[in-house]
């Protein structure tokens, strides 16, 4: 393994991560809810109503963040290498997987690990492992 020093952004990543942690802290202490994105979205798809307003408000903030960002700076670059078929397969797997697995990078990876939850540690190891394996297969064995 060699490290991509030119791509590595230690300070902005650490700082951005701290903001993500701050958002999770604010949501649990202020609103009493876990900042797990897949759970927040998934809760809106359940037929049983109730606690919808905080979910919608959180997602509005998340989707609105780039608009706030653009008031002060240009958006950072984003590059997507996947085509439509790959994006659809990825979205289906992420949608079904996070609901059966009860969480994603934020719910298990950030909030769960911060709660020292063994369940979230197991989930995080599983999705990280699957992510590493998938990228290896797609990028190096299939060579796309």
């Amino acid at each position: 393994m060699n490290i991509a020093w030119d791509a590595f952004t230690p300070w902005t990543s650490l700082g951005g991560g701290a903001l993500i942690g701050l958002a999770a802290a604010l949501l649990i202490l202020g609103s009493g809810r876990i900042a797990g994105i897949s759970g927040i979205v998934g809760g809106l798809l359940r037929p049983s109503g109730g606690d919808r307003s905080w979910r919608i408000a959180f997602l509005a903030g998340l989707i609105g963040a780039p608009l706030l960002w653009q008031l002060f700076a240009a958006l950072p670059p984003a590059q997507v290498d996947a085509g439509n078929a790959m994006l659809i397969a990825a979205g289906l797997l992420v949608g079904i997987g996070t609901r059966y697995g009860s969480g994603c990078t934020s719910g298990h990876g950030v909030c769960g690990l911060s709660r020292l939850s063994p369940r979230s540690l197991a989930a995080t190891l599983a999705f990280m492992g699957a992510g590493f394996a998938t990228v290896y297969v797609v990028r190096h064995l299939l060579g796309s």
Partner: protein
Amino acid sequence: MQAFIALVSGLIFGIGLLLSGMANPAKVIGFLDLSGAWDPSLALVMAGAIAVAFPAFTWARRCTRAWSGCALQLPTAKHIDRPLLLGSLAFGAGWGLAGYCPGPALVSLGTGSQPAVVFILAMLAGMGAHALLNRPGKALRQPPPAKG
């Protein structure tokens, strides 16, 4: 009040994702690609987030109510079961295919990204399928899952 705090939290979360570089799928793939030129940035995002969230969750465990007055809900599930592991494996595979997990994909939606729209629609379809297969009425008609 609860919704207002959630809105501010969502904004901070999204700004954090943009600043950290995690709203860029190529950067996420750079972390997941161990055998290429490895970009460790995602590990620092997790470290920074946990460093701030850990004391908050430690404190939250001693509270019954949030600042907004509503009940503070922490997950109670403890069992490491098959849905957790198989679901997480499927999620990881999808994550590795495109470099999107739910948070960054939603932020990318706000940047007007076309691929993010395709990904989010498919993700909602996947979540909707789960909701249909696990609707409350259906669960009542099935025997409870075997323990262990």
